[in-house]
């Protein structure tokens, strides 16, 4: 969700680096040497991929032996290849197990390079069967084209308001839903259960990029609804801050006990360095799920143990958990992309891939967009084989209630004591509906189409 931040703060370079149109083909062939079992089972899901005898060229991008899908990414700009890697890992694994009813998946990277979302979308419209397991920071620029060509998207991570929960968008992993606060359970736990004394002094710091700016007011509304009082609300320049001490001093002066940070975690690490230097310890700092990585901990240094960094994975299994599905993802990466990093967005992408593969598999020979879409929407408790808390894909307009909280320590991320009630997750807080108007996703009706046009 806040993936845009890192990108936006780097946006400066957009003018300097080449802007262009291209696509790179993810190597979908996979490794030649195969391990002992090439089964298409994933976690609790059996037969996600497997051989078959599909024949029909039943839709655009589908032939007797291939399904062509697009993977959106900003890799040409951010140089972050997490979606490309996830696509490579999943397609290699799936194709080795026999593909989908015998059809191999070919993943085409649609590299938007931040600004070229619309161009890439037009290309995808012409060639791809669907979009799977990707995301772009400025994805709102492409939704209209996507709806125009009725292209379903199994988005790993949606970013802009026009795009989050737009029609024909299937969110396999738990996601933000327009009009809801996705972190309400997390906030409630922080303010009412874990650190009730922090409720009277919550602060929020937000990057000044347009993409994240709108998250600030939503967070404030939800914090107030969860019983918190916001005493400090500040923007920082996404272009960089020469010294975080004044901000740290401001936080100290206002006596902020809990801090919500929307922005680039590199900046947060520096802010915490300033806070730690002046011996000011907060009850909690919400570092947001973008910070869920080892590099953040490395950057934190001393603050990792001095400050209390927490974040909400929103219902995705943590990477350090012993969940078998996570183990299997690690093993797949080890085999097909040993140098790639497994990130939270990558796990979300795998979830999207699994849902796509399962739905497409259920369509058999007559693989059409409508069939895949309907099959995916039929999942009322999608857990991606154990990668995540159950998501009701048939109800895309309702925020899922589950959350799981991670805490930073000097030795790595670990699960916070948030009393899970459903496996790794806690799902007992009813979602909170925001009152303010924070933009709405695009619909098919807005481009003069309807569901009946989807073939």
């Amino acid at each position, binding site marked *: 969700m806040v993936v845009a931040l890192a990108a936006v703060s780097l946006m*400066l370079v957009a003018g*300097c680096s080449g802007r262009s*149109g291209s696509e790179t083909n993810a190597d979908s062939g996979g490794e030649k040497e195969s391990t002992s079992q090439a089964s298409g089972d994933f976690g609790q899901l059996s037969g996600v991929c497997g051989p078959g005898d599909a024949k029909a060229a039943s839709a655009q991008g589908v032939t007797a032996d291939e399904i062509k899908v697009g993977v959106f990414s900003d890799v*040409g700009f951010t140089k972050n290849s997490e979606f490309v890697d996830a696509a490579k890992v999943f397609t290699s694994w799936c194709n080795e197990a026999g593909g989908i009813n015998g059809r191999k998946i070919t993943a085409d990277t649609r590299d938007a390079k931040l600004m070229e979302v619309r161009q890439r979308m037009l290309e995808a419209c012409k060639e791809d069967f669907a979009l799977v397991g990707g995301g772009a920071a*400025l994805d709102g620029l492409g939704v209209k084209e996507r709806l125009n060509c009725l292209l379903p998207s199994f988005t790993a991570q949606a970013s*802009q308001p026009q795009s989050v929960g737009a029609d024909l968008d299937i969110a396999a992993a738990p996601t933000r839903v327009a009009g809801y606060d996705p972190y309400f359970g997390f906030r409630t736990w922080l303010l009412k259960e874990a650190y009730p004394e922090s409720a009277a002094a919550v602060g929020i710091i937000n990057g000044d990029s347009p993409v994240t700016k709108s998250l600030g007011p939503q967070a404030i509304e939800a914090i107030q609804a969860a019983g918190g009082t916001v005493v400090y609300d500040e923007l920082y320049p996404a*272009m960089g801050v020469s010294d975080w001490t004044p901000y740290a001093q401001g936080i100290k002066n206002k006596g902020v006990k809990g801090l919500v940070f929307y922005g680039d975690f590199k900046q947060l690490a520096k802010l915490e360095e300033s806070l730690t230097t002046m011996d000011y310890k907060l009850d909690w700092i919400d570092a947001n799920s973008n910070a869920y990585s080892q590099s953040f901990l490395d950057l934190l240094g001393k603050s990792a143990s001095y400050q209390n960094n927490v974040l909400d994975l929103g219902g995705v299994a943590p990477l350090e958990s012993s969940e078998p599905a996570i183990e299997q993802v690690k093993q797949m990466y080890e085999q097909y992309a040993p140098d790639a990093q497994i990130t939270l967005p990558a796990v979300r992408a795998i979830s999207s891939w699994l849902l796509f593969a399962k739905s497409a598999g259920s369509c058999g020979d007559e693989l059409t967009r409508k069939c895949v879409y309907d099959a995916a929407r039929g999942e009322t408790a999608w857990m991606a084989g154990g990668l995540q808390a159950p998501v009701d894909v048939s109800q895309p307009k309702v925020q899922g209630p589950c959350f799981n909280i991670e805490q930073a320590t000097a030795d790595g991320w670990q699960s916070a004591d948030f009393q899970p009630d459903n496996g790794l997750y806690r799902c007992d807080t009813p979602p909170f509906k925001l009152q303010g108007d924070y933009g709405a996703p695009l619909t098919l009706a807005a481009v003069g189409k309807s569901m009946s046009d989807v073939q």
Partner: protein
Amino acid sequence: MDQFVTFGIVGLSLAAIYAIIGSGLVVTYTTTGVFNFAHGATGMMSAFAYWQLTVGWGLPVWLGLVIVLLVLAPAFGALVERALRPVQGLGDAEKLVMTIALLSGLIALARWIWDPNVSRSLPVFFADRPSIHIGSATVSWHQAVTMIIAIAVAIGLRLLMFNTRIGTEMRATVDDRALVGLTGADPIRANRVAWILGTELAAIGGILIASMVALDAAQLSLLIVSAYTAAIFGRLKSLPMTFVGAIVVGCLESYLAGYLPQNEYLPGLRLAAPALLLFAALLVFPHGRLRGRDHRLTKVPLPTIRGTVFFGAIVIVFGLVLATVLSDSDLITFGLIFPISVIALSFVPLAGYAGQISLGQLSMAGIGAAACAYFGENGQWWAVLAAIAVAAIAGAVVAIPALRLSGVYLALGTAAFAVVMDRWIFTLPSFHLFGAEITIFEQGSIELVGPSVFGYHVDTTAEITVFSAVCLALATLLVASLRRSRFGRQLIAQRDSEAAYATLGGNLLLAKVAVFALGAGIAGLGGALYGMQLQSVTAEQFNFVAGLPIFLIAVIGGLGAVGDGFFTGVMLGGPFVAVVALWPDTQDLVSVIPGLLGIAFAGGVISSGAIATLRKDWDPVFRDRAALAVYGVGFALVWLLRLNDIIDGYVFFGLAAGGALVLLAWVSVRGKPVAEVEVPVEWWGIQRDWQPEDEEVLDRAVATRG
């Protein structure tokens, strides 16, 4: 009080860094006359190099410092001096462009070498020592060291300038370059020392600040805008005043962060504060006459109307070709050639004719795009005109303070304007003005639709591309006829000498306001077209940094030529984009190339402009009607083949470009040089070979006179 002191200490440690960096700027500027936009980027490179040595490869800190400060930085400084030597005698725009090329080249290079997704951080110095407590406030050892180094730099510079021979030489070079040369001292050596010294100071500043901020190439390079403000306090001349300026800026930033009330509209103001302060400092401090009347003024070429009409026709044909040949998605990307061309064209009257360097033209384009989206929600035809008008008004407003500025100060002022727009105005929430609700770039992006002209709605990408091409052709014609008009001659006159122009009864205010409004209007048109081409645009697409490459290429093209706009658009939107599209792996390389090329070759081309160089080769072709006709027929044929899908796009463009080259070769072989070019008598034997009959001609000429 406690808080006040803390903020003060933060401000002073910031000030120390700004002072170090700012004094480096001043040293290079006073000695060489080059305002180094890449100064921050130099500091950034040193910080990265230092990180690589000490953290990446684990060398001890002292060794890392020695290698960076005593080996790498001086070598780099010497290299830059060598690269900049050819532009030393040229105008401000040309000098600026070299450092801008360096800036973008260095950022791209750093991002290539050091993967931006890997988190890096530099430890602060003496991190293991406890902070020093002064009363209730704390000073970290790093802060203390920073301040001590700043003081040492001040003393060191003073000693160097006044107590050494090379310092005296440098100061002498500032006063009178020619005279220094005559006395046997070497101005080039003074330049080299100045560059090395400047690089050194940038390196020290970069390493000091890098441990306080996130190690990010672009952020580090641009963070030190505040140091520029400090240097302006010293009027780019006085080192003590630079230090005072640094203290003012550092403390202001620190106190604003602490005390500015929280309000929806104000955070942006704080973020824009360094730029606003820069603007204010430029206006408040008197700037004596800029040094640098020693550069020669380039001649502004006089375009013929017939030639311009022909040129416009080529542009429109080019637009038609693109629109019919390319796929929709490619057309969105390559169709941007025309809007970028229009934006770049705005430099021609402004910088080419009137000599006003503006780095804020892309912000004007942003204003145009926002205005066009605001008025033309349903494709009203007049929205484009409204966009031009709104941008022109903004341009006129900028022109009034700009009246006090010229040369590099004006460039800085307009840069500050652009940054203020980026950080504050473009990100404002909606507000009410004269009863109308105004939103600029509210939801992050704005939607634009093509206009309806005479009842015909221009809406597909192909139509918009052709529409943009027509607009470019018309705007080019307008600029060409301006050059031929009385007003155009007035602009050139005031560029050549403001004083003389005023003495002869010219109105400087009027001329400047008019040309700024015109330039902004053209840029606004370009912005509106840019938005239509992409359908939705964000403020980031119009930010200051995105505008630098346009300025860079426009200057290399030659600011005086009306074809400069199209040249810039084609260069920026064409070859590099196409290369990356064909070979994606070259992306890193390609992003570094423009900067490096700019530095390596601009020196040679820049004095006359790439367009003038190109025209020398191509003019004979355009004069050769037979050859043109043959090419025209051949081109039409290939185009037809492409339209009927007999050949693909690559073959088409290959044939078209190859044909043009063959044509060039053919014409140069076929036709003798059309009408011997008249070479003035004093250049015989130099510009052309000495011919045996020359001697007789000379003899006769002398004899007749005698």
